[in-house]
């Protein structure tokens, strides 16, 4: 019983960590963007203020039950994937529900959230939301291919579908997978660009075209939940990449350094590019990233 209690406490702690880190990263993103654009930019904690403001909105409207469930779904999805991804190696404070085959589980649970949000967006009846959702789902078919190729390459190279096993591999061999499976890493990072949906892949939100797309009818608390879930999710993705390719982290500092370095990739890339059309984005992912994914698989098959 006690262990369950500890687990739950640990889960709450993990969630809080993810929330805080994700929010700060979001703020840092805005800050970096501003600095690159030669602005002062908002403070790094601006996202907390925004979140608080959104949470303190007095009134809210909904178009139906799915609009309630949509944010809930994406939150659940984020938290579930957070529970599966090991935050730190061998740390009892951050428990995880790791099991054999959790990579595949993760692949599916990570798309559950967007799908749930899409349902919420659909319920609002705003055409912009639906268009955004179709773009998002289409984009997903794009970046999932190199992403899965990278994962499959790892799986077949190390004969496991477990994240913890992959981390153990790195700990035992002393090399990060990003160096021993470079192609997989490249493919995965390229897929990550799409996962974060920053420019040039910000086709879902697309403020100027779609009025922020799926979330266009969500204000106040709904937007708050979505924002928090997005922050948690960003943390989950970064941590997963760190776990898979950069040997995990022993303590929080290393974790933050590694995740931030990784996070810089989509952030900086987004600053240099402008938005693609959806079909171009999809084809982009089926081009070079998939090629690297294929190389990764070939490497895994022939150079074990």
């Amino acid at each position, binding site marked *: 019983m006690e262990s369950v209690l500890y687990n739950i406490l640990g889960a709450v702690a993990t969630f809080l960590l993810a929330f805080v880190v994700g929010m700060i990263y979001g703020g840092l993103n805005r800050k970096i963007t501003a600095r690159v654009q030669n602005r002062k930019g908002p403070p790094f904690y601006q996202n907390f203020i925004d979140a608080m403001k959104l949470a303190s*909105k007095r009134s809210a409207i909904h178009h139906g039950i799915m609009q309630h469930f949509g944010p809930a779904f994406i939150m659940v999805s984020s938290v579930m994937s957070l529970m599966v991804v090991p935050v730190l190696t061998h740390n009892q404070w951050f428990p995880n529900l790791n099991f054999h085959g959790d990579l595949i589980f993760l692949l599916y649970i990570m798309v559950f959230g967007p799908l749930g949000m899409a349902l919420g967006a659909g319920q609002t009846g705003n055409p912009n939301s639906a268009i955004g959702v179709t773009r998002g789902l289409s984009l997903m078919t794009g970046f999932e291919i190199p992403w899965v190729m990278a994962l499959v390459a790892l799986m077949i190279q190390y004969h496991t579908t477990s994240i913890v096993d992959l981390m153990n591999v790195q700990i035992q061999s002393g090399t990060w997978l990003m160096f021993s499976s470079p192609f997989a890493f490249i493919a995965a990072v390229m897929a990550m660009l799409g996962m974060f949906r920053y420019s040039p892949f910000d086709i879902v939100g697309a403020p100027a075209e779609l009025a922020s797309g799926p979330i*266009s009818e969500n204000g106040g608390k709904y937007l708050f939940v979505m924002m928090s879930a997005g922050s948690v999710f960003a943390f989950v993705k970064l941590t997963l990449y760190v776990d898979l390719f950069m040997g995990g982290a022993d303590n929080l500092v290393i974790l933050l350094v590694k995740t931030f370095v990784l996070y810089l990739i989509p952030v900086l890339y987004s600053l240099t590019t402008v938005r693609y059309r959806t079909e171009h984005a999809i084809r982009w992912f089926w081009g070079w990233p998939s090629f690297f994914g294929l190389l990764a698989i070939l490497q895994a098959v022939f150079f074990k």
Partner: protein
Amino acid sequence: MINDKNSQKIVDIIQNWARQHSIWVLAYGTGCGAIELPPTMTSRYDAERLGVRGAATPRQADVLLITGYLTTKTLKRVIRVYEQMQDPKYVVGFGSCTINGGMYYDSYNTIKVLDKYLPVDVYINGCMPRPEAVLSGFAKLQERIAEGRAEGAKKYKENLEWYRANQKKIIPNWVMPDYNW
């Protein structure tokens, strides 16, 4: 605990602080004043450092920024947008036209005094107001929010009939759906 008067006060202070520093603006930019917004947002003046940021839809916006004159045609849209926003919400009248009609003071088809139709929290004077003036207007609004005085929405609700009557005078064929907030 939350319902307790004193703690409610503390919560109010925190919330107002958050609202003060996170202003998402929905700009209704039909008038010529909209040209002043880009410089306000970009690197020279950088309103984002104050927490001011554009919002895409009324559902997410805090401030309705009415840049310039409203015609009898556009008033309807503005009213609808305003009513779609979520509490607490503020209106900023931007430029002389919203105050007294400005250079259109004798035009037959513009709205002279915005306050008769929507509860304006802050007016920004000028024709056009420079970005500095805009920033100062936002600062004023933030001040009012922090003090808890920016309650235009409450005023609108209380005096709805008066506002409606004024609005209906301008808009002869009133087909707006009724909102029951």
